[in-house]
């Protein structure tokens, strides 16, 4: 199962590669269109640039192009690749699993359907990606989400906010079941049996995932990195969203300006460690 390209068998018996390629292109167009409509509807781009202008006015110094590039690299390494914005470790791990699972799954699908490579590595990547999506998705669904809401929301209660995550893990789950049934000899998709059912469910979840960008949180993968970069630039140029400065308590100038610091904490205050963050938030 893990080394078989599930789309290869599909193209022999049922759907031509051209149809599959067309389907992928339609999905890509839907994602792009949905994101643009989402931006128009929420006016997010307008407010984003308005905020940037405001920050620029409040800036205490200008950030050069080289420094901006450095900040972009830091954003990529911290917020994008390692989901550094999450303070909750469980949510961060679950997000990393679903994120890398999704990327692997999508990349492997594109490579296998457009026939860029018939290496078994991509079939493995597709399956591992789907498993990671399932682990991260179900962990979130059955354990984290129940706690995150903390208001009696059970796993079977669906809301609009769940459109993205539910279509994501159902895509991965039905994809895995379809691939298993197809490779274990339970019948081809063209036989109109169980394999056909799970393939149909896979396609339905897939289409839901990529066609509901306007209503789901799919677009967060595009605007979150931009917002994280803007936050870093605002910190670097001193506008810092009007937040107070970051002081070095051992600096004599800081101690002279705020005499309470050396009086009560000493000239070289120790690291006080985590306070309320010693315990994760668990909502009463």
């Amino acid at each position, binding site marked *: 199962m893990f080394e078989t390209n599930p789309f290869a068998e599909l193209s022999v018996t049922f759907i031509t590669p051209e149809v599959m390629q067309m389907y992928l292109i339609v999905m890509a167009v839907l994602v792009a269109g949905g994101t643009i409509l989402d931006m128009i509807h929420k006016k997010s781009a307008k407010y984003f640039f308005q905020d940037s202008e405001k920050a620029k006015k409040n800036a205490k110094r200008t950030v050069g192009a080289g420094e901006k590039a450095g900040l972009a690299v830091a954003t990529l390494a911290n917020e994008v690749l390692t989901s550094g914005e999450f303070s909750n470790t469980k949510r961060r791990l679950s997000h990393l699993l679903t994120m890398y699972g999704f990327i692997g799954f999508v990349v492997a699908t594109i490579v296998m359907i457009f026939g860029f490579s018939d290496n078994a590595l991509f079939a493995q990547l597709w399956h591992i990606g789907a498993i990671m999506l399932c682990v991260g998705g179900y962990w979130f669904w059955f354990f984290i989400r129940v706690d995150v809401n903390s208001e009696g929301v059970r796993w079977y209660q669906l809301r609009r906010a769940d459109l993205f995550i539910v279509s994501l893990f159902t895509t991965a789950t039905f994809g895995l079941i379809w691939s298993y049934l197809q490779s274990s000899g339970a019948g081809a998709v063209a036989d109109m049996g169980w394999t056909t059912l799970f393939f149909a469910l896979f396609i339905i979840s897939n289409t839901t995932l990529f066609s509901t960008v306007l209503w789901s949180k799919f677009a967060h993968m595009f605007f979150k990195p931009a917002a994280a970069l803007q936050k870093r630039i605002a910190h670097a140029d001193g506008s810092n969203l009007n937040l107070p400065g970051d002081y070095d308590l051992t600096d004599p100038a800081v101690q002279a300006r705020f005499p309470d610091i050396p009086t009560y904490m000493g000239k070289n205050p120790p690291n006080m460690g985590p306070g309320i*963050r010693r315990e994760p938030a668990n909502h009463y």
Partner: protein
Amino acid sequence: MPTFVYMTRCDGCGQCVDICPSDIMHIDKSLRRAYNIEPNMCWECYSCVKACPHHAIDVRGYADFAPLGSSVRVHRDEEKGTIAWRIKFRNGKKDMDLLAPITTKPWGSGHPKLSEASAPSAEMRDSELLFNEPKYVAMNDSALPTLESNGLEIKEGVYY
């Protein structure tokens, strides 16, 4: 003005939900972001503003400590043990930075180690006094502390 949440900065971690003394910060069921469910009941204690790791919660400073229309932002740094405030007046000219200590020793190191104290005797159990009561209420020689016993005296008038 009561608290409000910048939805794009909130990640739904729930620190504000845990700390709110009025129990009015909740996680929105459809957006998974915090919001103030009952602004009328918010007394602007700033607990959630200080607890938020993303600075996603804001309060418009009331006129009792900052002129109306000013931006009041706060950053509580647990590792450093300080709290920093920035009050920027609405004319944009006056921009105050304030910094104060919130602890003088590492968090959690100042708790009395009650498990290491010896168990109370039967006599102590039968007594009307609570654990360590004479010591903890600072009674000396079976008398309550007074200004006189502490060498203090009341001055007349406003003297702060």
